[in-house]
Structures are given as C-alpha cells and as structure tokens.
C-alpha cells in the first residue's frame, strides 16, 4: 500500500514538474527567446562555476588530507615496509604535483576562455615542439618512478638473508586462519587437504618425519628482528593474507603454495607507544565508548583480502610481535603436531 502511494506521489510529482517546465517554455516562446540556446550569460556563469569548483576541490582536498591523516596506517612495522613507504611517499608527491598542475590548468582555461558570441577562437591545430615536451617529461618522470619502484620490488621479493629465515605456514579456510610453525628442524612437514581428518585440520602428513615437531596455532607470534618466510596455503577458495601494518599481502591459492618473506622490526608494545597509534586508538575508543562497546587496544592483524564467501569481512587473526624470549615462552606453551595426535 505504501509502495503504491509512493509511486502515485512520484508520478504526480513528475507530471507537476512537466507542467512547470511546459509553462516556462511557453512563456519563453512568447517572449521570443529560445531557452536552450547557450547565451553569453550562460557561458559567463558556467565559467565562473568551473573556477569556483576548482577552488572548492582544492580546499576539500587539503582539508581531507589534513583531517584524514590520522585514520591512515601507522608507520611500517617491517624492514621492507620502510622502503615501500618511502616509495609511496615519493610517488604520492609526484602525482600530487601533477594533480596540482593539471587540474587548475583545466579549470582555469575553462574559466578564462569562456566564450562570447562576438569572439573567435584562435586557430591552433598542433605544435610539435610542445607535444614532444609533454611526451618526454612524463616519460622521464615515469622512468624514474619505474626504476625506483622496481628496485624496491626486487629488494622486497628477493631480500638477501644473512640469517636463515624462520619458516611459518599461514593456512586459510572459510572463515579463519591458522599458523603452522616448522619447529626445531625449521622444516614444514608435507601437507595436503586430502589428509584432513579429526584434529589434523591442516591435512599435515603424519608419515613425514619433518611434520612431527610442527606446531599449529590460532595466533601468529613473531620474534622481533628475525626474518620470517611465510608460506601460504588455502583449503577451499582463494583468500588473501593481508597484514597491512607490515606492508605484506599474498594470495592463498588452493592447490598451490605461495610465499612472502618479511622481517618485523617493531614489537606490538612499541607500536602501542607510537604517537600516531595513541591518537588513533583514542579516537576509536571515544567512538566505542559512545556506542557502549568494549574498548580497543592496538594489535597487529591479519585480514582476508580476497572475496571468499559470506563471512569474508570477518576473517582475522591476531599477530603479536615480541622479543625472542617472550616468543620462546609462548612457543613452549604450544603443542607440537606429534603431541596433538
């Protein structure tokens, strides 16, 4: 019933507007004006709007950059992440500079050259020199960005390790994560979903000697300053292991093993003392308090970042970065694969 009423109201509103437009047109026609011709007045007005829009856009841009600064991710908590952040900062500066040069030109020209019936445009069809310049300038800037980008990419992907990395498997399934530590031998036992049975939820092969000291956990603990090689597996569909604070992301693909090496270099406790993090946490807690929700304390997290089903939005695992001793303590409280069997 209410739907019907809404439809009737909409239809009537449409008819009313139609009639209003009609009257407007007829009265214009009587005055001998064609209301659809673009007049000099229109050009003037729209030209000014273009200019005003440009200022509005820049004011908003500055305002957003300033006031949204705080919501963004805090400084990187991994070694390669610092390089990624530098690259990001420089790329951002470059593109902001291009933005600040080109947008004003566009809107300013629109404003400056708003037309008049009596005027004529200047006939310019091309200018080879100018066109060469603006082919080469972007080319050079991009060459710089490409070189810098690729060197960062290479050092991220092929990090020369002085130290043997600790091998940890990240296992994704609808809708949760597990970690499997390789234990004393630093070797992961063979695993395949075909072996999944009972408590062996990761399908670890118990006939493989390397698997007996593996340790399966539901939280990810990492010792600070130690290189880790993550090896990713998925049980059912593609997931993506996203650790935004470490600038790490890698898809978890069923039927394949992917990997990513990272060295966390800021402990959870240290991160909580960062100025940015304190401010962000305070803002969040003010919001949570107002809603009567549990207060928040900063933690590193692992999120799923590839659409994987109905609870994709809630697939998380806590990550703790701590000192080697704390890590060893925690580790010794966990059961090895052999012990769980």
């Amino acid at each position, binding site marked *: 019933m209410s739907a019907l009423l809404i439809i009737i109201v909409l239809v009537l509103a449409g008819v009313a507007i139609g009639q209003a437009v009609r009257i407007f047109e007829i009265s214009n026609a009587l005055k001998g004006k064609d*209301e659809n011709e673009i007049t000099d007045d229109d050009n003037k007005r729209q030209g000014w709007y273009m200019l005003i829009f440009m200022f509005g856009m820049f004011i908003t841009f500055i305002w957003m950059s300033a006031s949204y600064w705080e919501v963004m991710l805090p400084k990187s908590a991994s070694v390669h992440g610092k390089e990624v952040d530098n690259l990001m900062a420089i790329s951002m500066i470059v593109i902001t500079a291009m933005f600040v040069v080109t947008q004003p030109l566009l809107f300013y020209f629109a404003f400056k050259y708003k037309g008049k019936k009596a005027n004529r445009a200047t006939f310019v069809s091309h200018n080879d020199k100018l066109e060469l310049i603006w082919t080469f300038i972007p080319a050079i800037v*991009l060459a710089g960005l490409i070189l810098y*980008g690729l060197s960062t990419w290479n050092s991220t992907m092929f990090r020369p390790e002085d130290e043997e990395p600790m091998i940890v498997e990240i296992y994704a399934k609808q809708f949760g994560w597990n970690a499997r530590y390789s234990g004393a031998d630093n070797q992961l036992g063979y695993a395949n*979903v075909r072996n999944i049975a009972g408590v062996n939820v990761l399908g670890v092969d118990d006939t493989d000697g390397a698997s007996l000291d593996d340790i399966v956990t539901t939280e990810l603990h990492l010792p600070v300053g130690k290189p880790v090689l993550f090896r990713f597996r998925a049980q059912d569909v593609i997931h993506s292991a*996203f650790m935004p604070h470490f600038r790490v992301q890698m898809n978890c693909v069923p039927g394949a093993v992917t990997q990513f090496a990272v060295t966390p270099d800021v402990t959870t406790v240290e991160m909580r003392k960062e100025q940015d993090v304190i401010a962000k946490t305070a803002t969040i807690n003010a919001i949570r308090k107002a809603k009567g929700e549990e207060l928040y304390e900063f933690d590193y997290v692992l999120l799923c970042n590839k659409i994987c089903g109905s609870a994709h939005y809630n697939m998380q695992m806590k990550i703790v970065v701590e000192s080697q001793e704390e890590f060893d303590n925690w580790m010794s409280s966990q059961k090895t694969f052999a012990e769980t069997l």
Partner: protein
Amino acid sequence: MSDIQSAETMHTDTHDHSHDDHHHEANFWNTYVFSQDHKMIAKQFLLTGIVMGTIGMMMSVLFRLQLAWPEQGFPILEKLLGKWAPDGVMDSSIYLALVTIHGTIMVFFVLTAGLSGTFSNLLIPLQIGARDMASGFMNMLSYWFFFVSSVIMVISLFVTSGPASAGWTVYPPLSALPQAIPGSGAGMTLWLVSMTLFIVSSLLGALNYIVTVLNLRTKGMSMTRLPLTIWAFFVTAILGVLSFPVLLSAALLLVFDRSMGTSFYLSDIFIGGEVLDHAGGSPVLFQHLFWFLGHPEVYIILLPALGITSEVIATNSRKPIFGYRAMVGSILAIAFLSFIVWGHHMFVTGMNPFLGSVFTFTTLLIAIPSAVKAFNYITTLWKGNIRFTPAMLFSIALVSTFITGGLTGIILGDSALDINVHDTYFVVAHFHIVMGLSAIFGMFAGIYHWFPRMWGRRMNKTMGYFHFWLTFISAYGVFFPMHFLGMAGLPRRYYTNTAFPMFDDLADINILISNFAILGAIAQGIFFFNFFYSMFRGKRSAQNPWKSNTLEWTAPVEHIHGNWPGELPTVHRWAYDYSKPGMDEDFVPQTIPLGPGEEETH
C-alpha cells in the same frame, strides 16, 4: 549474404533514397523492434543501457546504505530484498551479490554495450558518410543478443539461492562451487549464460563496426580525415574482437569445471567436510585469461568516451582538437599496450616476481600516451571561445576525472606499492574515477550532444546544468574520500567494517560517501525527466544546432533509411576546421571544398 549485398549497393548507387525502404513496407515491428536501421538500433542500445544503469545505480545505493549504517534496519531494504533483508538489515551474501551484479552491469551492460553500442551505431555510418552499417542484419542480431543477455542477468536476481556473488571478476574456486557461496549455484549459471550471449553480441557488433569503417567511408573520407570519435570506436572494436573471445574461453572452461567435473581451475579442495575430486588445475589460470580480456575491457569502456569528448570539446571550444595525429597515435599506443599489462591485477597472486617487474614496466608506459591525451585536451581549451553546453561541461569533467584516476594508476601499477593497496578501497576509488566516472561522463556528454541528432529535439539546458553540477560534485564526493579508506587498509568487498575495531574511525567517512551517493542518485532523476520529457515534448532542433563540422549534421533531422536523400556527401577536409582564419563562419563542415588558395590543415 543478401543483406551485405544490399548494403553494398546502397553504398554505391546514387539514386534518390528519400523513400523509406527498398524491400519491405515499414511497419511497427520492423521500424521499432526488429529494425535494421543503425539509428534505431542505437536508440535501442541506449534505452536498454539506461534501464540497466538505473538498476546498477539503485544497487549501489542499497549497499551504500549498508556500509554507512550497518545493523540499522531500512524498510526499503526489506521491501526490495525480502527474505535477504530480515528486519531491513541486508544479509552478508546478498551484499556480495549486489556488489557483484552492480559491477557486472556497470562494466558490461552500461559502459560497454550502452556506451559503445549506442554511439558506435549512431555515429559510425553518419560520420563516415555511409547509408548504414555493413550488415544491418548482424547489427540487429547484436542488439537482440544484448537484450536477451540483459533479461537473463535481471532474471538471475530472482533465483532462490541468490544471484552470482563471487565479485564481477568471478574468480574460481569461489564461483565454481555452490558449497562455497550460495550464489555460485543457479545464479552463477545464469550469469555465465548471460555473459556468453553478451560476448556474442559484442563480437557481432564489433566486426560490423570494423568492416564499416574500413569499407564504407564516403568519397574523400580518408582515414586521416576521420573524426576522433570514429578512430576511438574503430580501435575499441578491434580491442573487443581480440579480447572477448578469450573471456569466452575462460567462461567455457569454468562451465566445464562446474558441471562436467574437469579440473582446469580446481585442485586440492576441501569444502563442506569433504575433499573434491578435482586435481591439477590452477585458479590463477582463470585470472590470466580473465584479465587478458579484463584490462583491454577498461579501454573498451574508456576509449569511446574519450572519442566523444574529443569531438565535443573541439566543437564547443570552437577550435581544432589539439594535436590530431598525436591523439590518433596515443589511441593506438594505448590499445596496443593494453594487451600486455594484464598482470598488474595479479601482482600478489604468487606470480614470479620478475614477471611482476615486466608488468610494472608496461603498465607505467601506458601513462605516457594517456598524459599526452590529457595535455592535448587541456590545450584545446586554451584560447578557445568556449560554449558551455551540458555536453561540454561533462567533457571537461571527464578530463578532470581521467587525470585524477590516471594518477592513482601510477601507484597501483607499481608492484611494490600495490602490495599494500591491492583490493582495498584505494582500488575502488581508482577504477571508479578513471573508468566509471570518465566513461559515464563521456556517455552523458554524448547523450546531450547527439540528442538532437537522435530525436530531432533539444534537451532542456537548465535541467542539464543542474544535472551536471550535482552529478559532478557528488561523483567526486563519493570516490575521492575512498582513497583515504584504502590507505587506512580497508579491504573492498567487506559487508561491514565493524568486525575490526581498527576501522571504527572510518565510519564517518563512509557516512559522508553514502550521503553523496544518495545525492548523486537523486540527481539522476533530473536527467531521466529531462531525457524522456525532451524526447516527446522537447523543442525541435535545427539541423546543425552546435554548428558542427562533422557529417552527421548534414543529414536531415527527420530519420530516413539511408541517412541522406540523394547522393552521399563528399568530404573535402578534416573535421576540425573551427575558427579557421579567413572563413566567414567559425566552422567549416567537412563537405565544403577548399577555397581558392586555402591550405588543408591536419
């Protein structure tokens, strides 16, 4: 065969064409429904595109309600979604379904078929001086395949288990296994059927466009005298012919995996408490095939919009487009490069890092021809005598969004940076601005500009202005803040962000975005009204209302089959002699011979 022949004879013969048709009487069915006239087919594409666009836009409003005000009940959600929104709060599977169908509809149905289908059909014959497409019959089939495909996509919304919900990119295994998400059952099957028909439609259309541009140009219309619109449509069609078949093969293999037990994309899967038989496949293979189409697809969407803009900006600046040859060159460069960059969507799939470097390199190369285009548009405005028609405003807006979105592409194309923004809202911001907004603005520019050509009437200017400003402001209002969400680490395709306290401080930004989305949707009401009102009651238009040079304005306002009564026009110059010194008027149609001592410009 006979149709091709008749098109050929139509092209070459010179007798009077003012009578309606050669072979059959015009009746309702062959005039409005199974028409083979390119102008009518263009209108059919446009109207279908607008209907689909409305559906896609309404969906985005629904899921924006959810994102801004999760847990809050909205009666409208309950009304529209029924069992999927108990107490007016949408369920998480229907959220994914809405996002998926929204993306599919916008990318394929609105901005591929709706945009290209409308304007390639309308403008190719009219701007090159042909009587119709090479094959009117194939052209008609192309529309009807599209129509049926649209109908099936809409029907899929009503399946009991829900429509496809694996994202518009339908990555398997999620899209292959109904156990993984309910939408991958019947909903996904219909999605695949619909897309298959869509691909057929788009191939039929594209082949026709290519042949028409190559063979049916009128006397004097050399390739270098073609308006940039035609260059853009022509290259777009080539991209489509080369890339859509790959999507078809990807879809077919997915069909096999889903229903015949093959293992192209599936391997080692444990789901619903059991291990599946599939072994040896690779889900990443699908992504390679998909993005081999997918990346050219974004240019299939964008190039026609850029072509339209070139035409509209030149006409309304009353100046030649700056650097015509560079514009053609950059269209070709972009088209070529678009085939070797697909891997930038897959940097974190575990592909060989060296391959990642190659794709970074090729991707950043595309920025060069894109920058050339942007500078050329800006310079076209310089020292112009700009007339702000609504079409012109939308074209300037397009240049603005093309620059903004193109710049963030430099971030995403850089593999090292993509690690942390991949699949976050930064990506959503980027592709909506560079592709969604630019193409939609190009489409609006085209509609406002060629409305008089399609319906012989003018759209109302004042409503056009209101529509433009509200749309432009809310478009930036929706998508600009999303960059910040992405840099805060917020993943896309999340039903709600409340599961992570670290995102709580993003709630205000999400509310801001949703408000702009609602404003933007309401603003489209002005457009719909203007469009349908003007179609029937708009002021009659003069034959060449914008004082334009191109051939479509030399044909009479009344539609006749064959476009020109009598002989086809002969072309004597390029399309951009605006404000040429020494001429009486500030425009010189392409049909005017060079005056004594006049030099031809390029």
